[in-house]
């Protein structure tokens, strides 16, 4: 089954071609980060305007790279939500138009289900059941995953997402927007523990997170210090360590409470080098395995949408071409596939 996947939920246009027999054939992502940088955050209307210019050319490029034609498709999958309503509608319109034109099914996919299943595209995919940490600029959630569509929310952030905390702290340190990756780079040059930051909710006894206080603590720290380059790097290193400490501790607690021995990391923060280092170390001593998506598939992409679409379509195909978007959509409310 050859499935085209289209992702336009936020500020990345992602398109991919996935074959259920041959795996991922090609994928392309266009990031709008530069477009939104001078606004200090994603401007939804500008995101939508860029998506409608980028999507179809990306579809052409993906097909060319895979040596495939549109009329060979068996289905088109698109991100139905959660995300920015106007941005989602662009992907939904184009995907549904293509599917209707070809006479093949169009399928709306849950963005987080895409992230959750994306490690299945790696060379060593995890088997079900597993615990998944979805950690990105928009989400921080721990889920128990028993199969496709069989998800139980274990805990989530009460305020900022972890990636959001990285971006906001980067702004405090004058690293621009979106500064999360720049902050992580700077942290590599800094000394952890030279300044001390809290580990929010690390001993809360549950699987919830909170990161907004950490950003405020950085702000307080920065106001009372002379902010030379060395100090900035030290603050960045301590901030990153605080976030990683909390994420690792909650992952271990989630594995302990569910009894599962496989941990899946998905979402943009999953690309963070220090997080991977610490999780690998925890896995080695804690008796569990940890799985990551390919680095290129950590951030938003079309491949995970094509994959999730293919897995869902094998269970049941939609009957018509009415498309809607769901800017807010609870992952645990999805039906099980098959």
């Amino acid at each position, binding site marked *: 089954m050859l499935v085209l996947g289209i992702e336009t939920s936020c500020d990345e246009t992602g398109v991919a071609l996935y074959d259920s027999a041959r795996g991922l054939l090609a994928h392309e992502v266009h990031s709008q980060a530069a477009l939104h940088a*001078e*606004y*200090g955050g994603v*401007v939804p*209307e*500008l995101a*939508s*305007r860029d998506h*409608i*210019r980028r*999507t*179809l*050319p990306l*579809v*052409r490029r993906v097909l060319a790279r895979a040596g495939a034609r*549109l*009329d060979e498709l068996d289905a088109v999958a698109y991100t139905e939500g959660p995300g920015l*309503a*106007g941005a989602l*509608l*662009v992907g*939904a*319109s*184009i*995907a*549904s*138009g*293509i*599917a*209707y*034109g*070809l*006479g093949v099914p169009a399928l709306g996919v849950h963005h987080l289900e895409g992230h959750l299943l994306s490690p299945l595209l790696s060379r060593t995919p995890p088997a079900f059941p597993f615990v998944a940490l979805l950690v990105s600029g928009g989400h921080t959630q721990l889920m128990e995953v028993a199969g496709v569509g069989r998800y139980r929310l274990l805990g989530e952030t009460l305020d900022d997402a972890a990636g959001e905390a990285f971006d906001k702290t980067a702004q405090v340190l004058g690293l621009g927007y979106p500064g999360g990756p720049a902050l992580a780079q700077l942290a590599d040059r800094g000394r952890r523990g030279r300044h001390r930051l809290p580990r929010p909710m690390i001993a809360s006894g549950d699987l919830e997170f909170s990161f907004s206080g950490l950003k405020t603590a950085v702000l307080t720290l920065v106001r009372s210090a002379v902010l030379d380059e060395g100090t900035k790097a030290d603050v960045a290193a301590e901030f990153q360590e605080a976030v990683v400490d909390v994420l690792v501790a909650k992952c271990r607690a989630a594995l302990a409470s569910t009894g599962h021995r496989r941990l899946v990391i998905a979402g943009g923060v999953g690309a963070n080098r220090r997080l991977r280092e610490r999780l690998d170390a925890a896995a080695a001593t804690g008796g569990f395995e940890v799985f990551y998506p390919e680095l290129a598939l950590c951030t938003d992409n079309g491949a995970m949408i094509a994959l999730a679409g293919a897995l869902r379509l094998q269970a049941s195909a939609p009957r*018509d*071409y*009415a*498309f*809607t*978007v769901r800017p807010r959509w609870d992952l645990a409310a999805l039906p099980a596939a098959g």
Partner: protein
Amino acid sequence: MNILAIETATEVLSLALGTGARVHETTLAAGARQAELILGEIDALLRRAGLGVRNLDAIAFGAGPGSFTGLRIACGVAQGIAAARVLPVLAVGTLEALAEASGVKRAIACLDARMGEVYHAAFERRDGTLHEIIPAGLDRPDALPLPPGEGWTGCGPGFAAHRAALVARLGARLEAVRAEVLPTAAAVLRLAAPRLAAGEGSDPERAVPVYLRERVALKTAER
């Protein structure tokens, strides 16, 4: 030549199918349900004409200005179907479609742009063809560019939202007001058919919306 025309710049979902011999139309007060309804209605329209999506030769759509989301639904669906069927696409100005739909000789086409502004353009019909007198613009009603001469009819919902200000601004130039006229897919189709026949259609990815309002947020440095 079988041409599908889509116009969703207002709250109305307007579709037209020209088969050379005749025109089939669908008009629905869709409101926020345009996405949900559009492909099912396109399919029903094609079936009414005894056709399927495989029989289409070209697609035209109202490219704006108008509701940003509406424009992108029309554009996205047009792009998608055209890419799948390998068809040319033609973007038609929504204000021109509004003037065409009005049927009047001298039309000031006007849509409410919110934030105290209107999208507007002026067209004159000569020898059965619309000629652009004032190009599409975005202005406050009291700063509307004035068309030459008299005998103009104010057309479109912009005249419902800002009637008093526009009437005062246009003064003796204005002969009548027809605020109820909307841009329709049938008008898009009438404007598009000769252009498509002349080979003016493009690859679908090159057919994109025209917003006019470019400033939609403040940059960090402007705050």
